[in-house]
């Protein structure tokens, strides 16, 4: 890259975005996308910790059929509700785009910042405000509706936290929308000279598709939650059938947003994997156009299939069948991606480092998560599996096993660039193994539980229906295995926290380009200087044309 010589001098001078200005205020009111990305990263991981501890509480409780922790049923309901709500609204929706995306989008484009830096800061402040509402919910009121806020339970019977939590989610929605607008304009207007659309890193393509969904789907959940607040606050009938409203309408509204938003969660992870798989296999990406276009296709198909969450809600049989059929369309672009990643690795010189181990974990877990999705998309099987642990296992494979694993892969891949430090590679591999094993032990058992008929969201299971002693024994055993798995996973995650924090203080200095990447973020210093690049970088080739690739396998 033309800027390499200049960045080395900046490196020597020792000023970068981290030490350019000092003090808490210089962070809270910063317009630097890198600092905003870091603030997002810390906040998001903090809420992951809160949501994770709640999950451990839930798992511990299920260790015995009568409930092992002595939590009351009401407390249990709150624990799983807050786990779901925090993980969805505060962790996984903003996760990769707001943290890694904010940090790396302008760097990958060769820009000095995102298009609207003040709006970007406003997004973060809105995120923070929304988070305060959730904290208030936890501290003052409690919430027991499940993260979906289904009416009419949420409109009159549930605990008082509904208004607080939905207001929080409403505000968080605005944060998402502003981020989406910002990213789309940035990608359109701030690309470096020579960075054509077909030379964009695939992570940028995935952020573009994500932003489309942020902009087009989030407003609907905003209005849904607003209507819910109006109904609950003023006793006006909109969703409650007792007041003349319609609860199925709520589900339509809610899932019109919440289905597309699962692609908000997974698409950035797809983008991360596209980057990781090609850089750590030292191989040209297979099917660049197919991967890029399939991201956009997923964004749009996402608006056609939300009814598969409502097969037993009372929607008409015809529309359930149509939704079921359309749901299978999603499998096409996702399969294109998976095949392209596998084909990319073919005959590559794969480096088995921590980011690549996360890539392998992702491919394995996402395949299981994706294929079990077909069971649930098929109308006939879903009616039986609905509201069982099969569903829980499925979305944890997709949400945690894929999105979170992708997030971890991204953190490890870009950690040297963000902090300028290398983490301990050995501990990285051990932790990845622990998380992978713990995850499968936790959630694969839940597929079995679900097919055997264990319903989700039950605080105790010693009196599920007319449960036979044999089945109860099996449920107990599987739940116990699952709980043990979750603690293995937690051990792995705390290990990651430990060595990443340690690397900040004691880690080796990271080189500017530890993995030999070709996209622009590797062309500046580690950590980057305040304005990203010395001078305007110019792009002359695609992001994956590694010079050492054997032309025979290219």
């Amino acid at each position, binding site marked *: 890259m033309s800027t390499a010589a200049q960045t080395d001098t900046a490196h020597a001078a020792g000023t970068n975005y981290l030490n350019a200005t000092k003090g808490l205020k210089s962070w809270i009111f910063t317009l630097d996308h890198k600092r905003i990305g870091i603030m997002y990263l810390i906040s998001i991981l903090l809420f992951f910790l809160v949501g994770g501890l709640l999950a451990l509480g839930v798992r511990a409780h299920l260790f015995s059929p009568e409930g092992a922790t002595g939590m009351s049923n009401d407390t249990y309901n709150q624990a799983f509700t807050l786990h779901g709500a925090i993980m969805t609204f505060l962790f996984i929706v903003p996760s990769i785009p707001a943290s890694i995306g904010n940090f790396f989008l302008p760097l990958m484009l060769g820009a000095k910042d995102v298009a609207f830096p003040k709006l970007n800061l406003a997004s973060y402040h809105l995120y923070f405000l929304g988070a305060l509402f959730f904290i208030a919910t936890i501290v003052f009121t409690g919430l027991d509706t499940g993260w979906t806020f289904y009416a009419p339970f949420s409109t009159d019977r549930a605990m008082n936290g509904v208004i607080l939590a939905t207001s929080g989610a409403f505000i968080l929605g605005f944060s998402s929308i502003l981020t989406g607008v910002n990213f789309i304009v940035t990608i*359109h*207007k*701030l*690309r470096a*000279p*020579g*960075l*054509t659309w077909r030379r964009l890193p695939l992570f940028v393509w995935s952020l573009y598709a994500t932003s*489309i969904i942020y902009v*087009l*789907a989030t407003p*609907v959940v905003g209005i849904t939650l607003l209507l819910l607040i109006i109904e609950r606050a003023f006793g006006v009938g909109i969703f409650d*059938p007792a007041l003349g409203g319609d*609860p*199925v*309408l709520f589900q*339509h509204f809610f899932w*019109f947003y919440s289905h597309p938003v699962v692609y908000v969660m997974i698409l950035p992870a797809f983008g991360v994997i596209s980057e990781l798989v090609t850089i750590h296999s030292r191989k040209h990406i297979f099917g660049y156009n197919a991967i890029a276009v399939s991201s956009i296709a997923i964004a*749009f198909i996402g*608006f*056609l299939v*939300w*009814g598969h969450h409502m097969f*037993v*809600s*009372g*929607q*008409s*049989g*015809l*529309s*359930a*069948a*149509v*939704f079921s059929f359309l749901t299978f369309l999603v499998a096409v672009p996702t399969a294109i991606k998976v095949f392209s990643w596998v084909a990319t690795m073919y005959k590559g010189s794969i480096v088995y480092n921590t980011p690549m181990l996360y890539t392998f974990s992702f491919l394995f877990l996402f395949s299981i998560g994706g294929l079990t999705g077909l069971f649930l998309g098929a109308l006939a099987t879903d009616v039986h599996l609905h509201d069982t642990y099969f569903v829980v296992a499925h979305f944890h494979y997709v949400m945690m096993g894929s999105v979170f694993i992708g997030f971890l892969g991204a953190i490890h891949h870009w950690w040297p660039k963000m902090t300028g430090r290398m983490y301990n590679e050995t501990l990285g591999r051990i932790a990845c193994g622990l998380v992978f094993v713990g995850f499968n032990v936790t959630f694969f058992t839940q597929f079995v539980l679900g097919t055997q008929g264990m319903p989700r969201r039950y605080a105790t299971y010693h009196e599920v229906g007319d449960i036979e002693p044999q089945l109860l024994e099996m449920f107990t055993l599987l739940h116990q295995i699952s709980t043990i798995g979750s603690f293995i996973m937690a051990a792995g995650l705390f290990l990651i926290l430990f060595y990443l924090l340690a690397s900040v203080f004691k880690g080796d200095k990271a080189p500017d380009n530890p993995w030999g990447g070709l996209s622009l973020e590797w062309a500046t210093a580690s950590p980057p200087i305040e304005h990203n690049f010395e001078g305007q970088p*110019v792009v002359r080739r695609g992001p994956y044309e590694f010079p050492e690739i054997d032309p025979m396998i290219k």
Partner: protein
Amino acid sequence: MSADSNHNQGHGEHHVMPLSTYFAVFGALLVLTGITVLVSFLKLGLLVAVVIASIKAALVVGYFMHLKYDDRFYSVILLSSLFAIFCFFLFVFLDFTSRGMVVPEEETNFLRNERAMIERLEQEEAAAAAAAEEEEEEEAEEDTGG
């Protein structure tokens, strides 16, 4: 910068429309408003109103909002949101208008029929209880009678 044009994709200089265009569009909007109010007394229904409103909207978007002369990408944004809105209406109304058409409603409408189901179950239970009581009474009668 000159090597690549993507920093200046827009249509560069701004198109200033003559004043007459503004007033012509405004006139058309007034006329269409008049028509839509008059037509409403003829009770022609939804379709006419939607068509007139769409023409008015197109005039506002095309001329007042300069979409006709602006970057094509803005039209793509507009069409994308219209696509999402179209899907929204299409599938919600597919559901509400086809209730019970292919599959009988009581087989799918778990939520709406819940109250009816509970009532039916309670009636059945009551009937069963009544029958059981009768039987018991009969038995008792038989006992005393025998």
